[in-house]
């Protein structure tokens, strides 16, 4: 048995994941838009403090899947979800849960940076106020820390009251990450967070994501295979079959990229398909 096979056997065996390392467990999840199946039968364990990358061609349901995890999909009345998402003893699909609290615990970063058209300070102050941080001094402290965490403090500390939209794209994306981090979430969902940025900003944001490992459980959708390989611990490969997305392979990133088990995965990561 090679080392890779040993690791594979561990990963394929759910029992091997201790309950403490399993942060969110997605079982047989299907998402429908109206009657049309968008993604079907996804089972995926998210490990605590690890980065899980979702790769695959456009339109295979990665983003739909991601927005189901924080129930953002529930805003669209056409969306119907089947299956189970276990998170902290609750089933997000079947139990009636408070979405607003859930979204505080599960942050999300979007493909295009989306700071509010307010000042840098207000962008970070608003989420804190909304989630009941009443003390102004405490909010200021948290804002400074969040900006430091994303490496933005030195760049913006003298102009916190200027419009966030005046920042560069990369700075805006880091502000959005700070805005998510400031609520002290447990899981961060990232939908191609670097794809709208120039290469240098993209590198800065990527380094930042790497630093988030251990403290946060990260799920990142990316079209950049090299990025997935560089930063992720686990990778899930999605593909479209009969107009519906499905997961072809999931496993340790090194193994998946070096010796994919599925021929489709192999073709996709070598660039001959997709």
């Amino acid at each position, binding site marked *: 048995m090679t080392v890779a096979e040993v690791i594979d056997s561990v990963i394929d065996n759910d029992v091997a994941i201790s309950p403490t390392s399993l942060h969110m467990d997605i079982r047989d999840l299907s998402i429908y838009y109206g009657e049309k199946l968008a993604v079907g039968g996804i089972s995926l364990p998210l490990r605590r403090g690890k980065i899980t990358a979702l790769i695959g061609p456009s339109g295979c349901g990665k983003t739909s899947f991601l927005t189901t995890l924080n129930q*953002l999909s529930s805003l669209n009345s056409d969306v119907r979800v089947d299956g189970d998402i276990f998170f902290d003893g609750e089933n997000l699909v079947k139990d009636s849960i408070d979405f607003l609290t859930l979204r505080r615990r599960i*942050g999300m970063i979007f493909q295009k940076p989306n700071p509010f*058209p307010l000042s840098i300070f207000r962008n970070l102050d608003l989420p804190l106020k909304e989630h009941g941080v009443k003390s102004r001094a405490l909010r200021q402290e948290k804002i400074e820390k969040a900006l430091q965490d994303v490496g933005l403090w030195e760049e913006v500390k003298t102009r916190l009251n200027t419009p966030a939209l005046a920042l560069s794209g990369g700075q805006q994306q880091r502000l959005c990450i700070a805005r998510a981090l400031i609520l002290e979430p447990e899981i961060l969902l990232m939908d191609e967070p670097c794809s709208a940025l120039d290469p240098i900003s993209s590198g800065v944001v990527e380094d930042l994501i790497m630093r988030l490992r251990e403290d946060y459980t990260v799920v990142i959708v990316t079209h950049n295979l090299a990025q997935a390989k560089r930063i992720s611990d686990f990778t899930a490969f999605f593909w479209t079959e009969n107009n519906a997305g499905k997961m072809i392979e999931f496993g340790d990133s090194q193994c998946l990229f070096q010796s994919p088990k599925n021929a489709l995965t192999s073709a996709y990561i070598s660039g001959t398909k997709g």
Partner: protein
Amino acid sequence: MLSKASYTQLGSKLDVVVSVVLSVLSFLCAALLCLILWFLISESWTLIASGQWQRFFLDEGWYPLEGLYAMTPMIVASLALTLGAVLIALPIGLACAIYLEFYARGLPKKAFRSLLNLLAGIPSVVFGLWGLTELVPLIAAIKAPGTSVLAGAIVLSLMILPTVALTSAAALSGVNRNTLAGAHALGFTQKTMIIAVAIPSARSGIISGVLLSTARAIGETMVVLMVAGNVVQMPDSLFAPVRALTSNIALEMAYALGDHRASLYASGLLLTLIVWLLAYLASYLNEKSRVFARV
């Protein structure tokens, strides 16, 4: 048979003709505007020139037959009526816009929107008639005579309400969906998302709509003529009958001669300049909000 070259030639000739015709038409439109402005200035020139315009503000009152032309009470009345109308229409219009964009779905949404469009299409004289026969008696029951700043402001506000509501709704629907999704993803309530994110994002568009409505209200003649009372006096309360600049022109132009006539043209000039300024500001802000939405 035409060769390819002659096709092109024919095409380019046609192009020249079309471009000349269009240029002439656009020039005529622009010239018409200049003509109106020139006409207003030349007709009021006798009073504007040689510092006489100061009399519009310094004379003891509006007694045109005795050569006294103080317009201040009417300017103040016009501003009070307009401000009152905007203060009433803005919160209600904004509420309608929020309902349309964030709460209404399907048939009620369609029905409500068409209702607003219908409201916008009612002739102002009908509003005036309604105000005179229904609203004025109600106000008179509180304080006579009923025809007043309040009556004028309320009826004007109904007239501009659809504009405020529909332009605000358009501004709100132009707010980047990605920005709103960001607010939802942070666990914001619908209320916070609307108040703290959507409205600030749409502010330029909303203000632009309000300015357009203001321009419409300040230029409106029929409604204020019918319900505001037409007494030339400085308004001292909401119940005071007043005369707006617009209704003054309508009331007196039939018999005005000489300087009196010139003073009416001067007030027309003033109104035109105010409306142009408001329209310019509105389009400036609208452009700005579009740039904003693109970010």
